[in-house]
């Protein structure tokens, strides 16, 4: 099984530990992982800003880096959803996976050797949740399910909590976070408040962009609560 690790641009630049954990975790689970060296960005920041018409170069570069793999796996629901919905190449669209859905649906992970003795607050990033259907949503009348909590339950010592509003958006929203700064920050503050009420050590999720936004707010308020991508927990060991 040839797996290509897709490392979104901002993770590459600002959160290398998330990419390292993804790589190590996939290898630990028996995947032969390659990291295409000239990858950059999926094109989402431009497309969500209304500039999908200028993302041709990004799309071409993505194809040049990721064609020919069985699976393309990335630690970002939002970027993966963008590729699934908008990349011009059907083969890319059908072979790209968010890492947790890949673990559950493709690798069908039943156990993990992980250990993370902390209480964490689970943020369900919208694009992974409602877009990729990584978990059920409170809007619909459907049986509850979650690929994220399924995986977290395999981690020894880890206690996870939902915030009171289980799946409300954190307010990141791509360029929304700067063009609608006031609403964006208010949304983030409200999410954080609910996680803090649960006395969590970390806010975790499957999308680093949401976490980056909440981390910025947490740090400004001097909070001790940290943020971690879920793969960092799944990859953690004693």
């Amino acid at each position, binding site marked *: 099984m040839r797996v290509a690790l897709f490392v979104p641009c901002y993770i*590459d630049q600002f959160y290398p530990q998330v990419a390292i954990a993804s790589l190590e975790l996939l290898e630990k689970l028996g995947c032969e992982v390659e990291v295409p060296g000239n990858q950059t960005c999926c094109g989402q920041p431009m497309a*969500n800003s209304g500039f999908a018409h200028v993302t041709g170069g990004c799309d071409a570069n993505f194809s040049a880096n990721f064609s020919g793999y069985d699976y393309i796996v990335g630690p970002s629901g939002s970027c993966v959803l963008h590729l699934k919905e908008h990349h011009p190449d059907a083969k890319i669209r059908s072979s790209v996976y968010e890492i947790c859905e890949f673990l559950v649906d493709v690798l069908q992970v039943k156990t993990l050797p992980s250990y993370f003795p902390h209480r964490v607050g689970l943020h369900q990033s919208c694009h992974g949740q*409602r877009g990729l259907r990584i978990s059920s949503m409170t809007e619909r009348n459907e049986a509850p399910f979650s690929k994220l909590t399924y995986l977290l339950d395999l981690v020894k010592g880890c206690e996870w909590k939902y915030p009171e509003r289980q799946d*409300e*958006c954190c307010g990141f929203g791509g360029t929304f976070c700067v063009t609608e700064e006031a609403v*964006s920050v208010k*949304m983030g503050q409200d999410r954080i408040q609910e996680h803090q009420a649960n006395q969590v050590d970390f806010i975790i999720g499957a999308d680093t962009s949401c976490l980056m936004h909440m981390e910025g707010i947490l740090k400004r308020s001097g909070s001790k609560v940290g943020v971690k991508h879920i793969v960092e927990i799944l990859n953690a060991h004693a």
Partner: protein
Amino acid sequence: MLSHAEASEKFIANQERTDWHDDTLWFVRAKRDKASKLIPEWEALREHASQIKEHMLSNLPQYLLEFEVNAQANGIQVHWAKDAHEHNEIVYSIIQKHGDKALVKSKSMLTEECHLNAFLEQKGIDVVDTDLGERIVQFRNEVPSHIVLPAIHLKKEDVGETFHQHLGTPKGNKDPQFLTEAARIHLREKFLAAKVAITGVNFAVAETGEFVVCTNEGNADMGAHLSEVHIACMGIEKIIPKRQDLGVFLRLLARSATGQLITTYSSHFAKPREGQEMHIVLVDNGRSRQLAREEFRNSLKCIRCAACFNTCPVYRRSGGHSYHQPVAGPIGSILAPNFDKKANVDLPFASTLCGSCSNVCPVKINIHEQLWFWRQDLMKEGLAPAGKVISMKLMAWVLSNPSLFKWAGAMGRKVISWAPWLVNNGLNPWYKQREMPEAPKQSFQEWYKSNRS
């Protein structure tokens, strides 16, 4: 006019009020969840409702004609208005024929869209909005901030003060029960005196030529049944093919809107009362244009329940007036650019694209996808500020060139660690209330090169 972002910033400045607004509407969303989950076939109902509406849209002219024939056979006078102005003129000419100077009007978002009140008031007609929330905002010279809960931006203190000024209630009395009673007495007088009543329309049935109006207060019925002339105003997309379709829509509407089982009154008007005149005005006002826009045509399925408002994390924290449109919220943001792209260019961007709206929508409008499509449409039309075009093109260029990306990324991280004042300042909206992420020494690709190859 303030942009959505500017108006939101002002709204949020009152933190306590914002939290109240957010919590109150979230509570309505929670009631909607509870009501919908008591119906095991809820998702099947949504799908069915969506299919009825899509079928209707693909046969709209036939159904309009069928409705016209049947309504006329029932004794209803049918009028057609291609735009807001013609709608207002038609309504005015009917009023004029009866020589009346006052009328009562129940809630109709279409008349808000057409700015009917302002038009009639200029002609010297006293329009009395009879929905309690609408009467409150009318007294205050405001517009509704929510299509189902028009005065949700106000607190009871505000209403108490407004009623003190306009109805002479005791200063400082802010008891909702008392204030509602005051409005009941005040509006009863108006109902008993009015010869002309205007109502909106929730559904118009092609097969029977009847129309249905839903209220909780009973104000539409009080107006219509006491009046000599009843004028019902509707957008052409309110047509449904068959009477049995009402079974589907009435099960969805109130549950989606407020979590109620059904509105208190679901009134079916088929024929005028003896001696009464009944008119219906069918209004296009841009709907045929929206129908022709493939990506946006489904917005016309909307039944105006406002579930998307209540669930929207942006709406709840920015208030309805920040959308500067009669229909606010996510649905308003996909309807508004059809009327005026330039004036509403900010609205499709007033969303994180979280997708909650599309999933509460009882007729399954893909609202968040349409927001995305409007963004593309508006930017392609050149409605972006110049700076945004340059930065997007620059970003696309950098991100299409791996070596340039690596260089720019390394430079960026160096800037953040060596010269943080360049990004940590008031000109960077990120930094205003958030810290920048820490810049690691190595990017992942640099780490990979030095550790794995």
